[in-house]
């Protein structure tokens, strides 16, 4: 099944009958929309000369200051606004960093699974992705060491490790405190650059954010941040925090791409941070997502057939589900669409064709009741698929008889439907 087929299957997701556990859309309607609306209106009516004009390639200085305040919440206290480059979402930030560092054939290390949008960026740069295994505590340090050793043995040029340490997309897991230290030690030992992508870090349900990797080492980590999950993805405002030497290259690259990030949305974010209770709003978001996470985990526990396993996210948007042995999430997708439930097959989160038995479930957008209904439908789909596999998996085609060539099969007609056409005429 090609990508275009997957897209075709997804086209029904826009219909309200379908419960989509596929998309990762933030619940923006939980924002104080009236307040945000008047704020943006005033930015145009009162400050149009600035907000509708070109801006600095590096991004609005006032916003860059406020971005440093945001990063302080995750332990980054030494960031200077001069090290921040505002980007069109952190997606553009990752693209810039990849363009600056990667030549065709270079190797990028990334968790397996990894964020699908990052894999797209690496593919466009013709970089090769070497996945590093993860478990419930995130990236496995020993697997990282092993990957580095393999690459060295192969003569591969490893340009960086790309990691989403908090509430991983798609795996839902978080890199533990001990492992953060271990990963930084490995980076130091092997002179490894780390790209820390952290869009979900402030959306934890149970505890305060863990200190960012960037907070532990300012020279070895390039940090990608985003307002897409804490404020609005439609504004497309993200950033890169990088050492000055790298920052200069990023600014040149972004000027070549987009000249400057959009002024209006940068002013909107800066004004939002200046005038609105944004920390409280993040708590409102987290509480809403926690309720939806609970709906997802409770119904998975109640309904999934034996042999199904899933992660227990403590924040963010996603559950990563492993199907019972032998099932293939991509092959099962038409059945799921037919049952009016959508998910993202796991294979899309691997650059090497792995992940067939996995799927990503998003609980961020549907209401808890819809999530429960979606999981109910999904459980029935998996059960039907298990039933199908129990029929066909044991077939030993090696024992089939020889083919009888030229056999006249005129009498072979469709017995399963032989009554259908008679009353249909």
């Amino acid at each position, binding site marked *: *099944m*090609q990508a*275009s087929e997957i897209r075709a299957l997804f086209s029904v997701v826009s219909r309200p009958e379908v419960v989509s556990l596929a998309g990762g859309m933030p619940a923006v309607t939980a924002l104080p929309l009236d307040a945000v609306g008047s704020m943006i209106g005033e930015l145009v009516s009162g400050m149009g000369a600035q907000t509708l004009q070109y801006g600095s390639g590096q991004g609005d200085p006032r916003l860059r200051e406020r971005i440093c305040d945001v990063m302080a919440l995750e332990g980054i206290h030494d960031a200077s606004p001069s090290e921040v480059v505002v980007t069109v979402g952190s997606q553009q930030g990752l693209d810039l960093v990849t363009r600056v560092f990667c030549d065709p054939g270079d190797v990028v290390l990334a968790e397996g699974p990894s964020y699908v949008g990052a894999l797209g960026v690496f593919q466009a740069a013709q970089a090769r992705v070497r996945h590093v295994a993860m478990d419930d505590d995130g990236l496995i340090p020993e697997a990282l060491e092993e990957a580095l050793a393999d690459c060295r043995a192969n003569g591969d040029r490893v340009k960086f490790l790309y990691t989403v340490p908090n509430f991983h997309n798609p795996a839902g897991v978080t890199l533990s405190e001990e492992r953060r230290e271990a990963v930084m030690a490995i980076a130091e030992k092997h002179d490894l650059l780390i790209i820390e992508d952290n869009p979900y870090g402030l959306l934890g349900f149970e505890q305060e954010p863990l200190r960012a990797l960037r907070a532990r080492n300012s020279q070895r980590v390039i940090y990608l941040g985003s307002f897409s999950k804490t404020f609005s993805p439609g504004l497309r405002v993200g950033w890169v925090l990088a050492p000055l030497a790298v920052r200069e290259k990023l600014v040149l690259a972004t000027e070549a791409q987009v000249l400057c990030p959009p002024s209006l949305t940068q002013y909107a974010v800066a004004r939002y941070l200046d005038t609105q209770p944004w920390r409280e709003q993040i708590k409102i978001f987290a509480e809403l997502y926690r309720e939806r996470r609970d709906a997802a985990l409770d119904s998975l526990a109640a309904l999934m057939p034996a042999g199904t396993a899933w992660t227990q996210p403590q924040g963010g948007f996603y559950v990563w589900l492993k199907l019972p042995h032998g099932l293939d999430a991509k092959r099962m997708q038409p059945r799921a669409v037919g049952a009016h439930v959508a998910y993202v097959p796991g294979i899309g989160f691997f650059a090497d064709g792995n992940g067939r038995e996995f799927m990503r479930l998003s609980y961020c957008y549907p209401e808890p009741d819809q999530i429960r209904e979606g999981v109910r439908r999904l459980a029935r789909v998996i059960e039907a698929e298990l039933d199908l596999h129990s029929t066909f998996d044991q*077939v030993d085609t090696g024992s089939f008889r020889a083919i009888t060539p030229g056999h006249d099969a*005129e009498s*072979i007609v469709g017995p399963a*439907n032989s009554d259908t056409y008679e009353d*249909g*005429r």
Partner: protein
Amino acid sequence: MSETAPAPEPAAAADAPPLRAVVLAGGLTFEREVSLSSGTQVVEGLTRAGIDAELRDADAELLPGLAAAPADAVFIALHGATGEDGALRAVLDLAGVPYVGSAAAACRLAWDKPAAKSVVRSAGITTPDWVALPHSTFRELGAGAVLDLMVARLGLPLMVKPASGGSALGVQKVSRVEDLPAAMVSCFAYGDTVMVERYVEGVEVALAVVDLGDGPQALPAVEIEPESGVFDYSSRYTPGLTEYHAPARLDEDVARRAAELAVRVHEVLGLADLSRTDAIITPDGEVHFLEVNVSPGLTETSMFPMAVEAAGFELGEVLARLLANRAGRSR
């Protein structure tokens, strides 16, 4: 070509009020994306032909919408279930809304590929041997024994396809017996009955039939030459992945027999207005019926519009004429 249609009449007189058409596209099936693309083309074509055409999804808003703002006729550009299996048309019949295309019962027959093949074969038309079975048969009789029989009787390669549905979704060519169980599993994800068909080597053609009021006429055959060798979903809807020849590069005699077959299929299945028969022409010139579509794709890369163009017609004019006929107004 003797079976091609005459050119449509000139458009309606300028003083008549424009016909109002509702074009149905979207739906809740695997083919939603294709359908939306078809529907957009239909709306553009009808608008060019001077018809007031509006695109709508087949959802809970449809019937109240049609009641509030009646259409002179509906054009169904829905692919897949509901649009093609006759269900929606039965509802439009209940509502007394005229629509372009085949009646509900004929659609139901054509939608069921094995049933349609039975009828077509009974009428003396060649079609590859097949067997269609639900999952329960494999479970109850043992999948190994049933698949063994299928391979022994039908040989290899085999075509494995869902018993209903279009756009080649779920269709696979199986050349090695060890790939057959996995192909069955994939195919059953699309529906509860799978049709396994003997593979016939040859040139694949699409045979469009249109009835502008004076009986079904075949349009020139469109020959399909997929770059990959298999005319699957990607080959169909990715521009450049398939080369089409319209009219097909066929001998005059073969082209005539292909056209006759398409018209005959249209007639024996009781179809109306338009259809597209997919067929294989073997190297010795034999035409094999594969399946027929009552709601053929009308996207920019679809074969029905290519056939219309190859006949020297304008798609919008042809669709407008079909619509006007159903609305009881001549064009």
